[in-house]
């Protein structure tokens, strides 16, 4: 508990709120790097995930890649990239991008896959071309899940972005490392608390976005789910459970 008091003391100490390396500056840096990583990772992972979800092909590839990337220890990746690229932001940004890709990829393909095939089929049957099917049907309907992927990616990025400070003078990781090295645990814990709060706020924002992303018609559906099932379901047997676990 003593530690906690020290942490709070560090956070509220006015000396830490001004000048170079001040708390607001660190928070700003942290957010900025996280946003950059999120944008880059999204630009890579979302289109691939959507393509896989849209075509239904390459899911195995996605599962394998996500698994492999997830297994890649971020610390190891960071050191390796550090050795090759030197200090500064490039190495941590790449390491974090790798970290963020699996949840984004999974969100995108799971989202696209979750769209009722009959709806897509109908869209095609009335004469939508492929881009229209993607843009007007699959994207809006999969948005909540896609945003869910972005949400968990952003949580991981913010939590792990402290590693950026390992080789760059950046973000809330700096006071954490500094506190660790100088055994100023108040500082270390204080900065950690800030990271958690930051994550909380960003996560909350994305949770809200996720809710807003549910299309109006689909939301209306939720409130009417009283009936146990459609009047006459067709005989579709042995439906597989759609998760990342299908071989």
């Amino acid at each position, binding site marked *: 508990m003593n530690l906690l008091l020290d942490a709070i003391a560090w956070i509220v100490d006015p000396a830490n709120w001004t000048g170079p390396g001040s708390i607001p500056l660190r928070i700003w840096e942290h957010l900025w790097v996280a946003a950059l990583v999120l944008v880059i990772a999204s630009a890579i992972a979302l289109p691939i995930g959507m393509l896989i979800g849209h075509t239904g092909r390459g899911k195995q590839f996605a599962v394998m890649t996500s698994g492999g990337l997830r297994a890649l220890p971020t610390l190891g990746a960071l050191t390796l990239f550090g050795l090759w690229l030197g200090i500064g932001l490039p190495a941590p940004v790449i390491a974090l991008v790798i970290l963020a890709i699996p949840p984004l990829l999974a969100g995108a393909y799971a989202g696209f896959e979750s769209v009722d095939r009959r*709806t897509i089929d109908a869209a095609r049957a009335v004469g939508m071309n492929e881009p229209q099917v993607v843009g007007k049907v699959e994207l809006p309907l999969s948005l909540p899940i896609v945003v869910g992927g972005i949400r968990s990616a952003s949580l991981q990025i913010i939590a792990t972005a402290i590693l950026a400070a390992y080789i760059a003078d950046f973000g809330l990781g700096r006071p954490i490392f500094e506190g660790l090295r100088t055994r100023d645990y108040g500082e270390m814990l204080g900065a950690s608390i800030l990271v958690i709060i930051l994550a909380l706020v960003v996560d909350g924002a994305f949770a809200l976005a996720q809710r807003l992303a549910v299309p109006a*018609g689909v939301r209306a559906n939720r409130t009417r789910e009283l009936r146990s099932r459609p009047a006459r379901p067709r005989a579709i047997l042995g439906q597989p459970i759609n998760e990342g676990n299908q071989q």
Partner: protein
Amino acid sequence: MIEFRGVTKQFPDGTLAVEGVDIVIPPHQTTVLVGSSGSGKTTLLRMINRMVDPTAGQVLIDGTDVATLDPVNLRRGIGYVMQNSGLLPHRKVIDNVATVPLLRGVSKRAAYAHALELLDTVGLDRSLADRYPSQLSGGQQQRVGVARGLAVDPNILLMDEPFGAVDPIVRAELQQELLRLQGELGKTVVFVTHDIDEAFLLGDQVVIMQQGGQISQAASPAEILAAPADAFVADFVGADRGKRALHLTDVGGRQVVVDADGRPAGVLSS
């Protein structure tokens, strides 16, 4: 006129869904494809708007092989109604109906005005235009589906078990509605069902398909009933189960028509 010439479809996984089918679907009439599950009805229907391409044979619309037409354009000119209505859940009713005209570049105003008229045509209140599909009952959704199918005033209307998912009362209503509509519009309707009663009710021509995508008989309902082409057809229409072998019996002074199992089919009007 739609013509199937020696059409075969084998799916990549080896399933032979349809084999060597020849049918002529006359214009301005309703042709019903009926058969049990997996007999290839949907596959056949989808060849008309190129949702499926045959592996052998040709499908001709008014003499033109559809394989030579651009699929997206072709589909925009053919109405399509499916079992679960196939409406886009995130679009309002009016947007759903106006989808295809808008895709074809009709102005928003014109498309919406026409869509509202179509709601009248299919017997829906205009006040429903701003609802989402999930806020409608199953029967209402099917009506919207039909309205959407009619939106580009197509010559051909494909309907794949459009009333399969609604309960019997609503179903009967929708069937009547379709008969009325078809009386007014005279489209070339190709209708898929696996309910032989529905087929007999709606079809000018009924095509009975059997497992493996072959055609057992294609004729008018009365002809099929009077002279089933083979044992499969007889079984399918229920002739050999006694369902169609009726006799009369007297209940409370009225002539009740009863089938071979003793199940009452109706009352004879004098």
